[in-house]
């Protein structure tokens, strides 16, 4: 795959997506906005990939959002031409591209503005000690709405509002992100990717089909009121009931051996 703004590699069952414009703090330009959906499509289609890791190149930033230089010059063209201006043009994350394989985001520095999409749409988020989280939208006259709405489902409301309204001068540090559950671990800078890979390896021991169905039911539950979400969850359990991994998992446990999982179907992985 020809990529100019991303590094994309696979290690065993883990796909590692590195935002790779370190000279621009890995800000999203038009090319990156079109390359990310291609990479997520590959994650979705490759049966050998169980889990994805998103991180940024360099020691300073995961991603500082849409490249403001592009916006100011009027050359910002996010997404494919046919979709431009629609919500479908924002296809940066696994969820936005309809991929339900588990995603770990390793925040390696600053993340702000549109970069918060990667945090809001992740399953697991860890960060390095130098990570900071803030939202620059209102500083430059834009609405800080889309990413924070996702964050309202992850962290206390007050923290979301402070992030969105206070702007770039008010930065959440890694310690506070850990306190309020925005991230679950803080590592030294050089230990971040190794730790993300360790977590990925643990995830890969689990049934890929069960992971996808579980992740999907939990995310979809956020669209529903509690009783409806519980009903929806039960129907997911019923649909999964005949899956061969259920027998295999029980047998492997009884026989004290590693299970041999079925691959997850493309249909189950995609929305």
């Amino acid at each position: 795959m020809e990529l100019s703004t991303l590094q994309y590699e696979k290690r065993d069952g883990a796909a590692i997506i590195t935002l790779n414009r370190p000279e621009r703090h890995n800000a999203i330009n038009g090319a990156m906005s079109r390359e990310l959906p291609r990479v997520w499509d590959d994650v979705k289609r490759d049966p050998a990939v169980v889990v994805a890791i998103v991180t940024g190149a360099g020691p300073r930033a995961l991603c500082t959002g849409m490249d403001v230089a592009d916006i100011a010059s009027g050359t910002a063209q996010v997404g494919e031409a046919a979709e431009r201006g629609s919500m479908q043009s924002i296809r940066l994350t696994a969820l936005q591209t309809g991929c339900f394989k588990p995603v770990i985001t390793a925040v390696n520095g600053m993340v702000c503005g549109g970069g918060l999409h990667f945090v809001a749409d992740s399953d697991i988020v860890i960060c390095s000690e130098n990570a900071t989280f803030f939202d620059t939208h209102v500083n430059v006259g834009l609405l800080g709405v889309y990413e924070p709405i996702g964050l309202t489902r992850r962290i206390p409301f007050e923290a979301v509002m402070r992030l969105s309204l206070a702007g770039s001068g008010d930065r959440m540090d890694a310690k506070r992100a850990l306190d309020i559950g925005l991230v679950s671990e803080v590592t030294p800078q050089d230990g971040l990717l190794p730790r993300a890979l360790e977590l990925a390896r643990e995830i890969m021991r689990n049934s890929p089909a069960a992971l996808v169905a579980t992740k999907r039911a939990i995310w979809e539950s956020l669209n529903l009121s509690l009783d409806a979400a519980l009903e929806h969850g039960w129907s997911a359990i019923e649909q999964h009931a005949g899956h061969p991994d259920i027998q295999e998992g029980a047998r492997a446990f009884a026989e004290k051996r590693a299970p041999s999982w079925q691959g997850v179907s493309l249909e189950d992985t995609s929305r």
Partner: protein
Amino acid sequence: MSYDTLILERTGHVAVLTLNRPERMNAFDSAMRAELPLAWQEISDDPEIRVVVLTGAGERAFCAGMDLREVAAREAPRDASGAAPRVQITSMDCNVGKPVICAVNGVCAGGGLAFVADSDICICSENASFTDARTRAGQISIHGTLRLARRIPIEALLRLVLLASAERLTAARAYDIGLVSQVVAPDRLRDTAIELALAVARNSPSAVHYTRQAIWESLNHGLDRALELGWDAITGYSRSHPDVQEGARAFVEKREPHWAPPPKPGSKPGDDS
């Protein structure tokens, strides 16, 4: 306008509204309940005011809730249908669309929790505490409580309302669970809140107004629907609002932006093009 139970001051684009009955721990009596909607209206109508800091007078209390002495002394008021009139004390109760930073300077109890529940940003002093004695006083705890259920872990909230005066959430615990984002020494509280308000006031008033509106509105919807509505807000606003270009230009030219005046109360994204 001047008030008996409140102090309304202005610092640049920031208004500081102080609940001012320190001898009664800033509990709201009928006088304060009558004045609060007037003060919120004054704030809403003044285009110079972009952000509000809400705090309490004195060192002991932010607000002790409904003044029970008054409740004990007379029959509860009823309207023509026999229902109790709705308490309208917070910016949300009074439909004010401006961001509110709550600076909790001591005890915040019972109905006083509604100010915290309806604020956008909340900070407190080291001596602050949060408690809800309403069920022990025979009242149901609803006002403030339901929005708090969207702000803090449900266990913490149920513990607060069920244990009533036996439970007191400390400043440290409030910080841990994300009820507040900052705890400062009592003598630093007001200045810290004003600094934070000035930071908010430097941003595009329109972007702040619609951002705040859209995030609150998102709580009424499931995630996917909330995101669609958020996207509609963004496109409605970005298509035509002058602050979008001005913000980017000022950033690139490294100068202070000249923002458009704040939207009129009740405006929706796309209205002010």
